[in-house]
């Protein structure tokens, strides 16, 4: 299916948000995921389905400052 991830179109064969993270080798603990402008709770990553045309944004933790 066709997804837009961080603004870029990508074709992935996945069924849940967690599958998307796995396919990109991203540790779910390190990222906040927004699906079509709604934040997805970490505990719901594996039960939230994605469908053709969905837009995902990954927000990685960025903790520096000093």
């Amino acid at each position, binding site marked *: 299916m066709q997804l837009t991830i961080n603004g870029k179109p990508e074709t992935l064969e996945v069924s849940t948000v967690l599958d998307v993270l796995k396919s990109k080798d991203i*540790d779910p*603990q*390190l990222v906040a995921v*927004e699906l079509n402008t709604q934040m997805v709770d970490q505990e719901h990553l594996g039960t939230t389905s994605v469908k053709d045309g969905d837009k995902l*944004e990954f927000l990685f933790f960025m*903790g*520096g400052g000093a």
Partner: protein
Amino acid sequence: MSFTEEQITRYSRHILLPEVGGKGQKKLSQAKVFIVGAGGLGCPVAYYLAAAGIGTIGLIDSDVVDLSNLQRQILHHTPDVGRSKVLSAKEKIQALNPDVQVNTHEGRFTSLNARDLIRHYDVVIDGVDNFPAKFLINDACYLEGKPLVHGGILRFEGRAFTIIPNKSACYRCIFKQPPPAGVVPTCQEAGIIGVVAGIIGTIQATEAIKLILNIGTPLTDRILDFDARTTAFREIRVKRNPTCALCGPDPSLTELIDYEQEACQLQPSGTMLTNG
């Protein structure tokens, strides 16, 4: 309070702006900004706010200046190595602009002092380098009703985000809790291009000035991520999260939490993060 001839000259380029004018400059001179951390972000924020004529700047940091800080922490100079960061910062701020009152706190920002420290300020700036403190600042600002300008930097990347309590998404609306200790590297471990601290810090200072003057559109409900490698900004629209434990309709967080300070180590298999 009226301006002296010298002050009118000093702030003339602000006063010329219709959005600022004498009235706006007066607002700046009466404003109080609290900056948590006098490091990579805190230095450029404090420096520009001082130049802009912010009346009172509060600074808290428990560290002393290290030689490895000087690549980006622009208020600290070579002879300051080993000296208290807040005192070093205060000297430079007052040399630049003696009009600014600088309140310094040598120590840590904790759940015990956070709310008292920020209570008498108008805007708070996050210039800290660890997640427990970032969550603490977010929570304290929400509970005290203080606008917060969040900042974060790592390697070639940076992030800015403005939070107006009860009006816009807070940090916890996006990130529910700090990541497990040690899995996200800090600048100390992973490095930082010094100028990225300046880019993000000056965006934070701009946001503070806009909030004080009530001009333009704040960086609320939008996370602004910057990547120096491509010189590109990415704006991610966010909104208040109805399940937010802090600012949602059914909050479970009603007091401050001190999370364990992160172990300053990368796990051997630590994931290298890229943004996008």
